[in-house]
């Protein structure tokens, strides 16, 4: 069982089979088209996908359904909704049923998931409230400032995501810029860092562009004559906005929601840096299972649960934008 410490023995077989299948695919393409066909140019990407996307997912699924000895089990999923299950089983074999029964039922995992979803929902909602008017402003052809604002939104994205988040830490900390300002104004210091508000702030700050840009794109694609037609038919600016512009920008909104909600649910760096470990989110939990506890099996099961949730929410969103006009990943 020397493979078990890293990857199961068959994963090497799988990788080999994947490579063989890839080579066969390339050979078939050359044979069928008697030369280099355009589809051949996709082969580096296909190889990349096989090695770095398909294989890891297969491995995660494998770990999720096996125990540490490699045998099939559903216990990892049971650990999702009953997080003390494993401890209880160990106690049962060591000290008997009575002692085992004292271990509390319930799940810290589900609480964390609900909390993550709630935070992601808050983040998405606030991003939408902030982002839509911003996108509207940016897409307005009569506003000369629009282009400047677009650039202002893009510039922070040139900086590394981790650095941006850490920068907020030094802004928010007790001796940070904001607290210094507050003190200078005679308002006194406040605890700004290491709480839910700081985490939410960090998430909104980092994910807001992902809301603004899809909406901006779908708004700037709108035919300006449509607004004129609405005005022509009796709409003032507000009515034009909610009768014509808003309904037609829904694809962008859906794309924005997806692109903010997904990274929000799975984020683990922001809550760790700005929440200081006081607020745990589902991403942190998965990370801890893998890297701290070294329990790849439960970690994989949790990952699968989250993937499932994301897939479900994506398919619901896709219903609202059947043509994929938003241009996002939805």
């Amino acid at each position, binding site marked *: 069982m020397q493979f078990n410490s890293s990857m199961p023995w068959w994963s090497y077989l799988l990788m080999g089979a994947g490579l063989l299948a890839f080579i066969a695919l390339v050979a078939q393409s050359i044979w069928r088209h008697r030369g280099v066909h355009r589809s051949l140019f996709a082969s580096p990407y296909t190889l990349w996908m096989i090695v770095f996307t398909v294989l890891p997912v297969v491995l995660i699924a494998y770990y999720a359904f096996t125990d540490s000895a490699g045998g099939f089990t559903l216990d990892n999923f049971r650990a999702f909704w009953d997080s003390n299950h494993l401890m209880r089983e160990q106690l049962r074999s060591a000290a008997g049923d009575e002692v085992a029964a004292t271990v509390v039922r319930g799940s810290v995992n589900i609480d964390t998931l609900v909390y993550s979803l709630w935070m992601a929902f808050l983040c998405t909602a606030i991003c939408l409230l902030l982002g839509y008017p911003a996108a509207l402003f940016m897409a307005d052809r009569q506003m000369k400032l629009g282009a400047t604002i677009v650039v202002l939104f893009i510039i922070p994205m040139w900086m590394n995501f981790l650095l941006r988040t850490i920068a907020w830490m030094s802004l928010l900390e007790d001796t940070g810029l904001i607290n210094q300002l507050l003190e200078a104004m005679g308002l006194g210091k406040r605890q700004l860092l290491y709480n839910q508000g700081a985490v939410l702030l960090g998430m909104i700050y980092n994910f807001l562009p992902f809301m603004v840009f899809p909406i901006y794109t779908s708004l700037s694609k709108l*035919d300006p*004559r*449509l607004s*004129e*037609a*609405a*005005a*022509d*038919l*009796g*709409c*003032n600016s507000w*009515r034009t906005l909610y*009768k*014509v512009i808003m*309904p*037609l920008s829904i694809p962008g909104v859906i794309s924005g929601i997806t692109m903010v909600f997904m990274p929000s649910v799975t984020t683990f760096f922001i809550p760790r840096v700005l929440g200081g470990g006081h607020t745990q989110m589902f991403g942190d939990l998965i990370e801890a299972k893998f890297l701290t506890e070294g329990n790849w099996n439960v970690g994989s099961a949790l990952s699968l649960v989250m993937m499932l949730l994301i897939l479900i929410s994506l398919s619901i969103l896709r219903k609202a934008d059947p043509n994929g006009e938003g241009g996002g990943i939805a």
Partner: protein
Amino acid sequence: MENEHLIDLIHVSKDFDGVKVLDDISLYIRKKEFVTLLGPSGCGKTTTLRIIGGFETPSEGQLLFEGRDIVSLPPYKRRVNTVFQKYALFPHLNVHDNIAFGLKIKKTPKAEIDRRVEQMLELVGLKGYGKRRVEALSGGQQQRVAIARSLVNEPEVLLLDEPLGALDLKLRKEMQLELKSMQQRLGITFLYVTHDQEEALTMSDTIVVMRDGKILQIGDPKHIYDEPANAFVADFIGESNILSGTMIRDELVAFAGSEFPCVDFGFGSNAPVDVVVRPEDITLVGEDVGQLTGTIRSVIFKGVHYEMMIDTGSYVFKVHSTTMQPQGSRVGLSIVPFNIHIMQPMNAPRNEKEAQDSAV
């Protein structure tokens, strides 16, 4: 009431970033009139329409509606409706809801909306299409929806911006007649923008010919065709032979190396003029009896007539005739005095040779 001015544009100018698009336009539109703004692209006709619709503000001048200045009135408060060039139908609404849009905004009772939308659908020949998506309609059908969407609001004036531009020739001709009869039946004032001179001649009560932000001529179609104000109008409305000539004295003009009797007077003697002769006004006669003689360079069959290019040595005339002469043959050309149109030269001479001629 018939002759009452509905809309007056008084000395209207429009600049876009320092570029003059409209240069001192004055124009009035009477009730129930079909007025067409005609000109090549960039002549300012669409800008004029957009000023009346409320989508542009004039840099200078007044816009009166029934005598009141409406320059500062936003589009949604004006009693005009626009049919946009590419229709600008709302893609998120079906045909019925597109047409009902204006009525819903005005909080019309639902039963009345339904009744009037049905009536409109019938008028534009789209009965039963109410539930369709607008994107599933053909160009001609979308066009009708756009017209219905405007007309249902019973505007005083309907503004149409090249509404038939995207349609094929046959459909365009059908729609021209349909629009004209609709306008007469409903008694609504139409202001129509096009670059198609035939369309303008077919439909209009009054044609306004524009170029480079200026109005060149206003008149009814027959007047504009028969008595073009200058060589540009003559060239733009129908086909023309345009030559530089000299008015020798009243009722005698020299061009293409010969002298011709004409009916115009008052230009003075030996004055440079532009001479316009329509291709259908040149008669082919025997070589010995023509006022001019020339060689036929090309013959093209155009359906109703043959189009021949005839070289007289000093000018190549375009001639329309129902009888064909073989290419290369020598013919005589004859023009009756009434069909020679003399006008003041519009610009500086058109080429260097003429510049020298007029300098002499």
